[in-house]
């Protein structure tokens, strides 16, 4: 079964995944119409800035067993084993934030949502774009990602790919970690800027 696989080293922090995610979860499923919707759709993937200002797309891991599911006071969080997805039932959610306290990755947000009862604040997180996948599309974040930081792939295939990349770094013709040259350069520049900034402040 395919799933969204995160390659954090390839993230340049462009946040297109966030925009695509929000649009995909809008009633209209269109970016242009989405901005006029109430409640305004919000992303479920969150791009953070690391220590060197590198991007990191923080997405629900759909853990098994899921700590949020075990902690849910209302029995609103459940797992669809076939889809490898942890879902939140907005009708059962009581907005108690117990899931936020349980999640070790900080992926939960609380707001009104198109799919929730109108006016009700509920816990919201990634649903692996189940509606899109059911139509034969791939998750919005992976579809829009330009650098391969988010890809939709079979886990075994992605693991093999990773192994091959590591193996390649041992050869004389070391194209480092399968990272596109531009992305590698961009990350190096970011690190250099941060270090230079810190040196100047000192």
């Amino acid at each position, binding site marked *: 079964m395919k799933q969204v696989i995160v390659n954090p080293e390839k993230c340049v922090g462009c946040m297109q995944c966030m925009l695509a995610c929000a649009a995909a979860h809008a009633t209209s499923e269109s970016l242009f119409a989405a901005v006029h919707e109430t409640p305004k759709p919000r992303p479920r993937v969150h791009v953070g800035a*690391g220590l060197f200002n*590198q*991007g990191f797309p923080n997405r629900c891991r759909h853990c098994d067993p899921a700590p949020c599911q075990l902690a849910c006071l209302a029995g609103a969080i459940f797992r669809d084993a076939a889809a490898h997805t942890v879902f939140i039932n907005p009708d059962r959610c009581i907005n108690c934030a117990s899931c936020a306290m349980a999640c070790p990755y900080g992926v939960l947000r609380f707001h009104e949502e198109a799919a929730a009862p109108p006016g009700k604040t509920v816990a919201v997180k990634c649903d692996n774009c189940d509606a899109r996948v059911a139509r034969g599309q791939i998750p919005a974040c992976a579809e829009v990602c330009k650098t391969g930081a988010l890809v939709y792939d079979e886990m075994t295939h992605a693991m093999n790919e990773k192994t091959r990349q590591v193996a390649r770094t041992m050869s004389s013709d070391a194209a480092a970690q399968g990272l596109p040259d531009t992305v590698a350069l961009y990350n190096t520049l970011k690190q250099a800027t941060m270090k230079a900034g810190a040196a100047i402040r000192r």
Partner: protein
Amino acid sequence: MKHLIIGNGIAGINAARAIREMDTSAAIFMVSDETFPPYSRPMISYVLEGSEPHEKLPLFAGNIYEDLDITPVLGHRVAHLDVKKKFVHLENGTDIDFQKLLIASGADARHIRVPGAELGNIFTMRTQKDVLDHLAAISLGIKNALVLGGGLVGFKAAHALLKRGIKVTMLITSAYPLAMQVDPTAGRMILKELQARGLSVKVGVSVSSFDGETRVKKACLDSGETLDCDLVIVGKGVDPSLGFIAENDIEIDYGILVDPYLCSSVSDIYAAGDAAESMDIARQKRWINAIWPEAAIQGRIAGYNMAGRKVACPGSLGRNVMRIFGLDVMTVGLANPDGADDLEIIQAGGEKAGVYRSLVFCRDILVGAVLVNQIEQGGILRAMIENRIPVRIPKAYLMSLHFDYSKLL
């Protein structure tokens, strides 16, 4: 294999689920005095405040006993446990034998023992039935409510009654509610928020008697003052329900002492939830963290061990998250340490900023946290406390409102 589980709270239910996951043929008996289907105990305060209906309390659609092939024995308490002959004696006279026993009997609310305490409309708040009783009293019209105790139960009761527009007076011993859960800064923010919604607080006084005919009308305080009240909720804490265990049969401190596999001092007898006393991860000593998520996890782990799959419990961790009108409060571990000799406390924000956080470190290990507002990333801090991960980045980064998982990579 015949398993017996005392208690149908979340610890008992999760143990049964874990046993069934491992062993499809084992016999599982479950004893409880509560006849209502297994429900979410923390949700009763949402029912009291009126934001969720009573019908939403059950945790499972359908009959969980049938689905898991559990033999329920409901409506009776265990009167006596015979650890040698391995059976329990119920209050109604029946005996149930077992090969493995889980004591997930939970805890009972402490009652207040003063003259007039038997009057009507004086309640505790522990079970769904308690809240139905509160609602029945409220439906007849309540003007002034009195809440005794500023702990979690007292706070939840007061918060719920205020949401219903009922005037509430709270009697507490500390200067602010939730003194066991939060530090003074967060405590003052919470107090202010509750006072703005109509809570009045009296510090350092207690009730010496209640007055009324059939129902409570007045409370007389030890300060000589009298308070008009037509509803009283007693939040004086809970005690583990262990009355059925004879002295010295099982090692008990305040709760049943358990090893990392949640086994008591007697082999084949396990304990989980509010009745179990395990190692507190933040304090590094034995403690009962009588909270629902801990009971949920312990029940599951106890169930695996009972079914023969060795799973260790890393210990328990106190934690709470509350939405208090306009404030969101999360507190984890040693949130308000006293005598902090080798502890370092870092604080930022406060009442004016509308956001506050306080982190407690023991050298490079995070051991406690209090967050007021912007609590979404609190789970990461909770995980760092629980796993005792040394903090390798500047501690100030954890304090930042922009802190997120990417800072740890």
